[in-house]
């Protein structure tokens, strides 16, 4: 099988223009200057839309399997508290930078989302959990937000007489930024929730603070 695959690959022409010329010719219409971001959000928006749906589906399956396992975490030491305090703001800053720079240089929603998830992972590892205040509706809204904004933008374009996911050149840059910002938040949160490995359950725990439950 390996030999067959290798033979098939070696039979390919040594030089193929691919689609880079097509993308380069149409880059002015996409609203961004980085060809990869243009392909991800604009030219092949369907892929990314469905990809967000796949992430959401994975999270749904994990949540449907039960609530998150109760872990007994040691209280974080001085070093970890200091490191978290130092790294988490820095990671959030870098995520924002990658999101912004994605329009002109390597970066974009997926990269920024995973850096954001890394910040969340650090917090989780030092004992933080989704609080009662956040584990209800607001968590769900943020998680679905990326997909929802994407679909809403596509539908709004349809109402304007265009086709689904076809952005007018004038607003394309701003639209892409909004879509990517929502996608970044969703991807980061979904990855953190997947790391927790279950539905957050503030009500079941004996230690959850009553005043935060009252706020819900």
């Amino acid at each position: 099988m390996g030999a067959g695959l290798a033979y098939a690959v070696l039979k390919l022409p040594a030089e193929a223009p691919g689609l880079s010329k097509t993308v380069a010719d149409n880059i002015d219409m996409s609203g961004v200057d980085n060809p990869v971001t243009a392909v991800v959000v604009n030219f092949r928006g369907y892929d990314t839309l469905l990809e967000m749906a796949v992430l959401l589906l994975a999270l749904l399956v994990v949540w449907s399997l039960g609530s998150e396992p109760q872990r007994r975490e040691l209280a974080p030491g001085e070093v970890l508290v200091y490191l978290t305090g130092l790294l988490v703001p820095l990671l959030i800053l870098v995520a924002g930078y990658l999101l912004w720079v994605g329009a002109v240089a390597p970066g974009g929603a997926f990269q920024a989302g995973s850096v954001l998830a890394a910040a969340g992972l650090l917090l989780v590892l030092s004992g933080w959990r989704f609080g009662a205040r956040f584990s209800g509706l607001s968590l769900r809204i943020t998680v679905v937000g990326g997909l929802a904004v994407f679909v809403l933008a596509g539908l709004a374009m349809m109402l304007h007489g265009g086709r689904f996911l076809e952005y007018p050149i004038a607003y394309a840059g701003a639209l892409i930024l909004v879509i990517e910002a929502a996608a970044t938040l969703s991807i980061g949160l979904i990855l953190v929730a997947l790391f927790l490995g279950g539905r957050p359950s503030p009500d079941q725990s004996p230690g959850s603070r009553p005043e935060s439950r009252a706020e819900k």
Partner: protein
Amino acid sequence: MDEFYLGMAVMLLLTLVGGLWRVMRGPTPADRMLAAQLFGTTAVACVLLLSQVFERVALLDVALVFALLAAVTSVAFVRRVLNDEEAGHGDN
């Protein structure tokens, strides 16, 4: 100058391969994990050299993300694997 940078990158890759010896031999899990952390530093240096060779400033961002993200793995190691070992069969 490119030749020098590329040569250094090849050297760094060789040190990475050498470091694998510690991952394979290292008597304790901490030894293996530290070696992997060191690879992260090697990779940062390698990316910086390549950004000079290919003249792409954007690669500096890659090095930045590398440097930041290496910390997450080590924190996960200390909090999950080491803590559980202590809680499991340590005496104090």
